[in-house]
Every structure is written in structure tokens, then in C-alpha cells.
């Protein structure tokens, strides 16, 4: 027993170590200006991609349900926190304090939405859950786009029509301007804060997975009926995993929002595409493999950045241009190939025969 505990601890240490090592390499390079501008611009995105991928892996890999609305939770976190930051810009001047409060608020709002969505949705399974979470993501995006909030001496005004119907008084300002989103957010995100958030996310997720609760969640994934029969409260544990995942996605959204001057909700950043993009990271890193979700977003983006720069230096190489122009096409092909290679019953059999592993039986 003691041996297994130390093994988990060692595995966790390796995962944390990878993040710290990456930080230790990148931070001095960024400080001394040795990184290309495109790469140093990717450092904070790396952090939120990793946070999102790890949190989605909690739903997909550990809970065993496909959520296609992960970007929706990210959107909730981003807008709630950006709205907060914008409101208190004058009162709280310390950017670190402001960011931490925004982080709390963003995650809390995302968690709240996670619970609200989770209670009805987690009664569903598989395809239905996937499509409902997709629907939720789209609803959130639409709602944010018709939301207008303004502030003047009389207080906060709210409308769902346009900024004129806010009826702002003298000196009032529009805080959330519908499709134009929130502008003038202080850019409080830094690579250090991002790395700390990644470590915190890993800590929460790994602690959850390796606890009694985590084992209950995985038991539900592997055999719901058997888990229920030994007295595991299905709804409670599903909701727990889903809410933690949503809250962390919200935290990723906070990091995202405070890395931009203007936050808008388009189909590109908070739509279905973003949810799929995160799913691609999870699948490439390995479903259920947390360390994979840390590595995949970074490696994929580094490779892409490398190709892009190569392409700029070399001028015209049709292959490289094709690769950099059609990133999503390549992702789609790789996604299909990975799924067929790793999950097809025939492939699993062949692989087991090749590596001499015993055939694991899922049934009964």
C-alpha cells in the first residue's frame, strides 16, 4: 500500500515538475526578450489552454461524459470577472488583489452556472448530454451578446435591447455593450499568475481524482449501475465533478479576459469551435490522462508557431503554408485517427497481442 502511495506522489511530482520546468525555461527567455513576439504572446494562452484542457479532461476522462459547452463556462468566468474588474478599476488599484478577486468571482459564477446546468443536464447521458451542453454554450454566447449594462450616478442600469435604452444619466458609462462586449479591461494577467493558476488547477484536479470522491466518480464512469448498487450517490458525484470542471473553466476564462483589452463573445472564442479545440487537446493528450492535457496544448501550439515562423523565413514552401493555413484540418484528421487507433476493438486486440498485455474485460 505504501508503495502505491509513493508512486502516485511521484507521478504527481513529475506533472508539477513539467509545469515548473517550462516556466523556468520560458520566463527568463521572455524577460530578456529572447522569445519571438508571437511566442511570448502565446505564454498566457498556454496557461489558459492547459487549465481548460485539464478541467475538460475531468469531465470527459474521469466522469466519462462529453461536454461540448466548456467554452460556455469559460465565457461566464470571463465576463463575470471582466465586469467586476471594470467596476472596481477606480477603487482597487493593486492589480494583483484585483486579479485574485476577479479570479474568485469568475470561478464562483462559472461554478454557479455549472450547478444550475448540471442539476437538470446530468440526468441525461452520452449523446444527449453532449448536445445539451453544446446548446448551453450557444445560449450563453447569445445572451452575452444582447446584454447591456451601464453605470451612472444613480447606480447600475441594465437592458437587453441596446445601449440607448439604458437611459444613462450625465457622466454615465456603458460597461457591457452587447456585441461590442467589455472594453478597457486592465490587462492583469501575467505568465507568473497563469503558471500559478495551472499548478492550482492541477492540484485541485489531481487531489480530487486521487481521493475517495474521485474513485467514486471513476466507478460511475466504469459502471454506473454497479456503482449505484454499492451505494454511491450518482447525482452528487456527477455534479461534483461537473461543477469543479466548470469552475476551473471559469478560472481559465478569467485569465483569458484579463489578457485582452476588449472582451467580446464571438463564435470563435466562446463558441462551439473553442469547445472542440479544447476537446482536441484532451484527446491528443489522452482521455483521462491529466499530464497529457498539460503537454498537448503547449506542444501543439509550439509546433504550429515553429511552422509559422519557418514559413515566414523561408518564403514560399507550399507544404508549410498548407500546414499553417489548415491547422483545423490537420487537427480533425489527427482526432479521427487517434480515436480509431486507440478505441477500435480490433486495434485494442492487436495492441494487446503485440505488447503481451492481458485483455481487459469491461463487461461484468
Amino acid at each position: 500500500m505504501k508503495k502505491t502511495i509513493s508512486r502516485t506522489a511521484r507521478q504527481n511530482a513529475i506533472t508539477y515538475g513539467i509545469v515548473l520546468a517550462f516556466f523556468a525555461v520560458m520566463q527568463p527567455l521572455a524577460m530578456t526578450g529572447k522569445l519571438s513576439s508571437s511566442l511570448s504572446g502565446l505564454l498566457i494562452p498556454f496557461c489558459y489552454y492547459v487549465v481548460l484542457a485539464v478541467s475538460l479532461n475531468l469531465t470527459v476522462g474521469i466522469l466519462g461524459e462529453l461536454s461540448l459547452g466548456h467554452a460556455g463556462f469559460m465565457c461566464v468566468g470571463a465576463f463575470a470577472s471582466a465586469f467586476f474588474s471594470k467596476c472596481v478599476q477606480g477603487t482597487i488599484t493593486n492589480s494583483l488583489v484585483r486579479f485574485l478577486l476577479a479570479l474568485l468571482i469568475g470561478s464562483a459564477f462559472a461554478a454557479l452556472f455549472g450547478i444550475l446546468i448540471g442539476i437538470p443536464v446530468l440526468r441525461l447521458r452520452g449523446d444527449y448530454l453532449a448536445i445539451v451542453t453544446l446548446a448551453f454554450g450557444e445560449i450563453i454566447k447569445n445572451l452575452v451578446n444582447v446584454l447591456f449594462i451601464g453605470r451612472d450616478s444613480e447606480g447600475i442600469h441594465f437592458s437587453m435591447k441596446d445601449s440607448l435604452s439604458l437611459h444613462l444619466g450625465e457622466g454615465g458609462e456603458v460597461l457591457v455593450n452587447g456585441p461590442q462586449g467589455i472594453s478597457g479591461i486592465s490587462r492583469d494577467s501575467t505568465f507568473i499568475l497563469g503558471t500559478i493558476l495551472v499548478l492550482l488547477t492541477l492540484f485541485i484536479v489531481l487531489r480530487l481524482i486521487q481521493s475517495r470522491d474521485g474513485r467514486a466518480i471513476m466507478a460511475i464512469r466504469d459502471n454506473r449501475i454497479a456503482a449505484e448498487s454499492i451505494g454511491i450517490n450518482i447525482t452528487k458525484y456527477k455534479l461534483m465533478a461537473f461543477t469543479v470542471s466548470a469552475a476551473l473553466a471559469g478560472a481559465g476564462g478569467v485569465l483569458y479576459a484579463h489578457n485582452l483589452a476588449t472582451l467580446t463573445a464571438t463564435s470563435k472564442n466562446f463558441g462551439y469551435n473553442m469547445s472542440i479545440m479544447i476537446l482536441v487537446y484532451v484527446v491528443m493528450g489522452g482521455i483521462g490522462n491529466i499530464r497529457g492535457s498539460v503537454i498537448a496544448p503547449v506542444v501543439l501550439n509550439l509546433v504550429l508557431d515553429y511552422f509559422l515562423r519557418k514559413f515566414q523565413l523561408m518564403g514560399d514552401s507550399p507544404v508549410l503554408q498548407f500546414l499553417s493555413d489548415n491547422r483545423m484540418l490537420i487537427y480533425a484528421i489527427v482526432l479521427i485517427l487517434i480515436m480509431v487507433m486507440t478505441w477500435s476493438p480490433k486495434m485494442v486486440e492487436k495492441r494487446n497481442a503485440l505488447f503481451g498485455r492481458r485483455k481487459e474485460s469491461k463487461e461484468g
Partner: protein
Amino acid sequence: MTFLNYLISGISLGSVYAIIALGYTMVYGIAKMLNFAHGDVIMVGAYTVFVAMSSSGLPALPAILLSMAVCTVLGVVIERVAYRPLRGAASPLAVLITAIGVSYLLQNLALLIFGSNTKSFSTVVPLSPLKLAGGQITISGETIVTILASILIVVGLSLFINRTKPGQAMLAVSEDQGAAKLMGINVNGTIALTFAIGSSLAAIAGVLLCSAYPSLTPYTGSMPGIKAFVAAVFGGIGSIPGAMIGGILLGIIEIFGKAYISSQMADAIVFAVLIIVLLVKPTGILGKPIREKV
């Protein structure tokens, strides 16, 4: 009168959803999987007609037949290459994620071939609009053709499934794959046939959709595809008349939502319908309750 006009355009849009939903509902009923790429097959069908008519100068009917052939082949190939290897995989998520990958692949292939700019689709319906009540109600030719086509397809499919041997084989496979196999039914062949029929319907839906809303991009199919799935769930997944009813109701809800509530919120309203249906009556209007065996 505006109310009636909205109702008519709702039924027209709903008929397109119904045709798409038929493809979903058949595949879901028989292969027990959500074919995420179905919406993108619609897009491929529409592009095929667009290319055939604008560059090759084919008349409308041969172009539609060609598009149906292309989509049928595409549907069968997708099933063979991406979905069949994953039948019986340990996790039900495997085939779902693969389907999302196929959907993305089709969109990005279209993006690569046709570019991201919007193509304006010329209508394939030569009928002139029908004016009623002294010109206050207008029914466009597309609406008439769409509604007729959807009725014909539903009747034809019901006859095919209930009266022919391959149709009966589909019913058997949808009830119990193992037992169907023991009765000598070619399960893989039947599922492939289902994909073929569903995809050729998608081609028709693509043409009708783009005739009514004539802007064609690589993403044209994805949103109608998802909404048609909502329609299929609404009507009761696996049920052919259910897909028709669900599609038309959803079309009416969407158009009324756009007209009377908020045009930006129309999609949100459609999805809210899905969530409510799944909570109140998860089997849909005409669906049968599914019993879970331990």
C-alpha cells in the same frame, strides 16, 4: 396576416429541419449513434449542386441527383472508415468524438476547396410565388416544394420501412443487433444502407435549405444540423413521423421567436426548447420509453 406569413415560413423552415431530422433519427435509431457530421453532409450536398449548376451548367434536376449520389457515397464512406471500426468500443464517447472529428474534417475540407467567402446559391425551384388573400399572404415556390418534398419523403420512408425486406431488417437491427444477426440479417450492410438513405436525404435538405436561404459557406450545415437533431429529439428519436412533427414545430418556434421575441435570441430559444423537452418528456412527443437492462 403577418402572423399567417410567419406561420408559413415557419412550416417551410420546419420542413427542411424535418428532412434533416429524418437522417438523424434513422441513424440514431439503428446505429445508436449521434452522427454529428450529418449537418456537414448537407453542406457538401449544397456545394455539389452549386458547382454542378454554376460551373458545369447542369440543369437543376440532374444536379440534385448528382448531389444525392455524392452524398450517399460520402455517407457510406464515412460510416465505413470512421464509425464502423469503433462499433463495440469500450467507451460510448469514442464514436461521438470521432463524429465530431468527421464534422470538422468536412468543414475544413470545404474551406480549403471553396474558401470562406459566401457563395450565393441560385434557387432550383422555377415556380413563381403564390399570392393569396389579395396579395397579403405570399407563399414562395420554395416553400411549396419544400413542404411537398418533406411529406413525400416521410410517406415514402414509412412505406419503405414497413413494407420492404430491407426496411424490416432496419427495424430488426434497431431493436436488437445481436438477435438480428442470428436471424441472418447483415447488420453492417443494414447500417450502411441507413447511412446511405440518411445522406441522400441530407443532399435534398441542403438544396432546399440553400434555395430558401441562398448563402452558402462551409459552416452552412452545422447549425441547421444541430437544430434538426433538436427536432428529432423533440419528436421522439427513432420515430419517423416524430421527426416530421418535431421539425415543423421547431421551425415554427424559431420563426416566431425571431419575429416576436428577439432575432438574436432565436437560437437560444430553440435550444431552450431542447432542454425543456429533455427534462419534461425525455422520449419526445412520439418516442417510446427505453427500458434499461442491468
